[in-house]
């Protein structure tokens, strides 16, 4: 009897515990019932890992049946009777493969991540920042003002119908793993969410603003030195728009203005901004990142290709994630666009790709399109009005409530707006920000027009109204026309026209007076040199077009290298284009290695060398200046460059930290400026003020090389050991969207180094996000890949099936069938038939 009772008690306890654990999340452990259930839980993801040979579904609103054929690379080829139907099908197939990513990206822009991910303080902080930036608010406003017949309005509506049809028809087993781990369900996709995505991309590409950077540096070395170290124009001119010169031009200033008296007012403002806890959001770049990341694109006219056909290479570099930021797709509309390439997950149409006649790709212009204004307000804590032209104007207030998973209020902020944009209190003063993406009326529409272009001329016309983020678009067509244009709205400012200083906001006279006209955009069509290339360098030679587009440009190492390769090759092939994308050569190394060696030799000749320096110089001289995986000398150069930065820019370390040898400069000038400095061996900047001696160039270069060797020996072992292998030192790290290690691809050895054409900064989480080569012949041919795979299901073979190809620098042949029947049966993996609702 007692045993029976005990068993009952035990059974009751077990049942209670299991029912609770089955239905409720316990800490990080998801509710076990739904998670472990083999029929519809996480295990079921194995059952839906691959696409079924045949399937069918209905999408409300579909005008005519759509056939989707997936090829053996997992690329859906959508054959539709109208553009709307193609976008509906696109929404459906993207949601089928990437549903969680769709929602996550949108929430990042809207500031609602905590509703999905929970009340993690970092997530809540990210949501608050997003709301202060006003991305979601701006997208809502733009969407509300959209003419319902506008191309983009029709597209995002149709796309949303497709996404929601997938969500509505999805089986329990098809729920993405991330939702299961989070204990969440997918939210309904609204048309405006696509606009959120465009703003999120604009944030990645165009939020960086040089104003704070300049303030920080002025606070340390004064205005004149700041201007020299972070110049308006690149000291090395190799612009996107060819300037007619056969070689790069070195506009070196000699001598550079020496470190000046600190600008204490600027320092106060900079400190206040930083104390404000990111406020409107500081730069996402870290000191030194600037020259290491970026995108490339180039096109070669038929006169310089082996086959006499225009070639185009696209190579946008963005954050590397699993699944990838891109989704490869082909949209074929009967009598309409027939376009293939990649789309951003959440965006209708194709962003980068090609159609039957034209191919195109983009790099980021990095234009300065965000300005900060110091506002005068009536209440320093809770402003209701701000001063403008001698009158008080009302401040728009918006209460932003950050909520958690079940609606719990996690944070409440009042966000303030002037007519310029969001405003934030920083160190007792209020700054408002104006940013071009907020001023787009039809974001994303231009990409849909590009999909339809039949010639480069139509392509250029299609995106002439594009607003943000400004992009260097190259295009080529089957007629052999090639072009590049840096397109986006460039604000015209009063006064000196520059946007890299704080502006006084109490007068409208400080506001933008308009936008630069299209004919002044950096542009080139069929240049005599026969090719065009962009790599985030200053777009136009200031001698040809002195308008302000921005400042503090990336050093043009990648531009120098690709132009060097293209100038040397008058019979370019598609395979050469592919090889160039991962070329391990470095214009940066070509510039600095001789300087190190020259200084070491000079010190030796002057009796100021030692065995360590002589050994370092010998080892560095052995380097072929290539960042191949099996290279054993690139590491020495990198450690020496790191030391050089520390030794030269000691003036840019805050005074309080100068005793700390590991302290970092607040900002690091572009390496093009360092090269400029090297042309003056006695500049005051060479002196390391932390020592009693007065150093000159050779002493500092020698010391950097010497220290670099000692560090390398200490950390990596002997020079011919495996520790010095570039593949051991440098990796790509492709994190899952939730940074779950098991779903990430980490420590991948890659070819390329800082400022090579396939650059990879220290953390390795940025890099070539899509590599594409297109040949514009009688029949367009293309080759491409990206790191990752089409599916967001980690159990799927399509989750990361492209990684090996990407790592090897290879490309897959892109199938581009004109009809469903043209896709070979042997390469057809799955067929999906879509129909409208009965």
């Amino acid at each position, binding site marked *: 009897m007692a045993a029976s009772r005990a068993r009952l008690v035990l059974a009751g306890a077990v*049942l209670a515990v299991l029912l609770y654990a089955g239905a409720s999340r316990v800490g990080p452990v998801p509710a076990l*019932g739904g998670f472990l*259930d083999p*029929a519809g839980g996480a295990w079921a993801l*194995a059952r839906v890992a691959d696409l079924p040979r045949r399937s069918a579904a209905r999408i409300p609103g579909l005008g005519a049946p759509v056939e989707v054929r997936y090829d053996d690379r997992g690329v859906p080829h959508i054959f539709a009777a109208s553009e709307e139907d193609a976008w509906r099908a696109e929404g459906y197939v993207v949601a089928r493969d990437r549903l969680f990513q769709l929602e996550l990206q949108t929430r990042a822009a809207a500031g609602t991540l905590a509703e999905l991910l929970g009340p993690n303080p970092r997530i809540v902080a990210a949501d608050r920042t997003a709301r202060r930036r006003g991305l979601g608010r701006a997208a809502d406003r733009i969407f509300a003002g959209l003419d319902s017949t506008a191309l983009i309005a029709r597209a995002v509506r149709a796309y949303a119908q497709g996404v929601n049809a997938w969500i509505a028809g999805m089986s329990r087993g098809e729920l993405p793993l991330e939702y299961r781990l989070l204990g969440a369900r997918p939210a309904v996709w609204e048309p405006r969410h696509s606009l959120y995505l465009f703003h999120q991309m604009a944030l990645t590409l165009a939020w960086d603003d040089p104003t704070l950077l300049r303030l920080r540096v002025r606070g340390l070395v004064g205005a004149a030195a700041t201007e020299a170290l972070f110049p308006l124009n690149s000291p090395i001119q190799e612009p996107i728009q060819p300037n007619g010169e056969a070689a790069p031009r070195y506009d070196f200033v000699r001598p550079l203005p020496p470190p000046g008296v600190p600008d204490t007012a600027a320092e106060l403002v900079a400190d206040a901004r930083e104390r404000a806890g990111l406020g409107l959001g500081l730069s996402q770049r870290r000191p030194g990142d600037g020259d290491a990341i970026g995108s490339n694109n180039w096109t070669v006219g038929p006169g310089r290709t082996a086959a006499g056909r225009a070639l185009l290479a696209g190579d946008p570099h963005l954050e590397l994630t699993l699944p990838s930021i891109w989704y490869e797709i082909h949209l074929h509309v009967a009598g309409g666009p027939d376009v293939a390439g990649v789309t951003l997950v959440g965006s209708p149409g194709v962003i980068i790709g090609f159609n039957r006649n034209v191919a195109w790709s983009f790099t980021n212009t990095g234009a300065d399109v965000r300005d900060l204004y110091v506002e005068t307000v009536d209440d320093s804590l809770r402003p209701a009005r701000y001063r403008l032209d001698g009158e008080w104007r009302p401040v728009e207030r918006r209460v932003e409530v950050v909520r958690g998973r079940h609606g719990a209020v996690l944070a409440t902020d009042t966000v303030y707006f002037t007519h310029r944009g969001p405003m934030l209190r920083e160190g007792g003063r209020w700054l408002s920000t104006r940013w071009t993406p907020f001023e787009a009326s039809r974001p994303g529409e231009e990409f849909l027009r590009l999909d339809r272009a039949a010639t480069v001329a139509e392509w250029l016309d299609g995106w002439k109204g594009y607003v943000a983020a400004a992009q260097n678009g190259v295009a080529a067509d089957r007629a052999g026309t090639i072009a590049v244009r840096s397109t986006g709205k460039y604000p015209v400012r009063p006064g000196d026209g520059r946007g890299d200083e704080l502006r006084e906001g109490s007068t409208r006279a400080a506001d933008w007076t308009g936008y630069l006209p299209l004919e002044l955009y950096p542009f080139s069509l069929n240049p005599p040199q026969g090719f065009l290339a962009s790599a985030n360098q200053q777009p136009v030679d200031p001698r040809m077009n002195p308008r302000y587009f921005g400042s503090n440009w990336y050093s043009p190492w990648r531009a120098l290298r690709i132009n060097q390769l293209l100038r040397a090759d008058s019979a370019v092939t598609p395979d050469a284009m592919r090889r160039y994308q991962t070329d391990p050569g470095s214009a940066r190394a070509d510039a600095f290695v001789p300087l190190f060696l020259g200084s070491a030799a000079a010190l030796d000749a002057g009796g100021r060398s030692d065995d360590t320096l002589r050994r370092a110089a010998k080892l560095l001289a052995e380097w072929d200046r290539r960042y191949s995986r099996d290279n054993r000398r690139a590491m020495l150069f990198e450690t020496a460059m790191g030391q050089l930065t520390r030794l030269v820019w000691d003036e840019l370390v805050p005074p309080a930290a100068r005793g700390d040898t590991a302290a970092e400069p607040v900002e690091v000038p572009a390496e093009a400026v360092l090269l400029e400095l090297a042309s003056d061996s006695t500049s005051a900047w060479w002196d390391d003020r932390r020592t009693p001696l007065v150093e000159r160039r050779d002493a500092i270069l020698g010391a950097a090389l010497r220290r670099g060797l000692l560090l390398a020996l200490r950390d990596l072992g002997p020079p011919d050991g495996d520790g010095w292998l570039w593949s051991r030192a440098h990796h790509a790290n492709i994190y899952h969207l939730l940074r779950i290690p098991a779903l990430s691809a980490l420590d991948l050895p890659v070819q390329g180094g800082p400022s090579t054409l396939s650059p990879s900064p220290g953390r390795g989480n940025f890099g070539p996000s899509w590599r594409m080569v297109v040949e514009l012949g009688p029949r367009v041919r293309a080759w491409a890949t990206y790191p990752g795979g089409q599916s967001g299901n980690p159990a799927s073979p399509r989750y990361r099936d492209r990684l090996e190809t990407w790592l090897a620098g290879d490309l897959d042949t892109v199938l581009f069938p004109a009809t469903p029947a043209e896709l070979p049966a042997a390469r057809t993996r799955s067929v999906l038939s879509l129909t409208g609702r009965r």
Partner: protein
Amino acid sequence: MRNRAAFLLLVAAFGLGSWVGWWTVPAVAALWGWLRPAVPRPILSAGIAAVTAWSFWLTTDVVWDPRAAAVLANQLGAIMRVPPPALYLVTLLFPALLAWSAAALACAAAGYSDSRPGGSR
């Protein structure tokens, strides 16, 4: 023969019930315990039947796509910080204990004094 049929019926009920949701495991087990069919050790049978049903689902997945099943097991194991076999074990223990406990309580609620066939009310 009847015992075996009843057991298979129970396995089928657990298997199909899982298609609806995991919560059908205790529901089916409770019904089984309440009805108390004339099979040996009905409460234990409930647990074993639930394990059998879920094993069937898991095995089907492994046979259907062994690569995907292995990849998934490794990933889920890494995420949950347990070896993949342990995750399989947890997956099978969960319905077993659910079914056993629900059947035991239902049996008792129905007034049976023990779990053996022929036990008295």
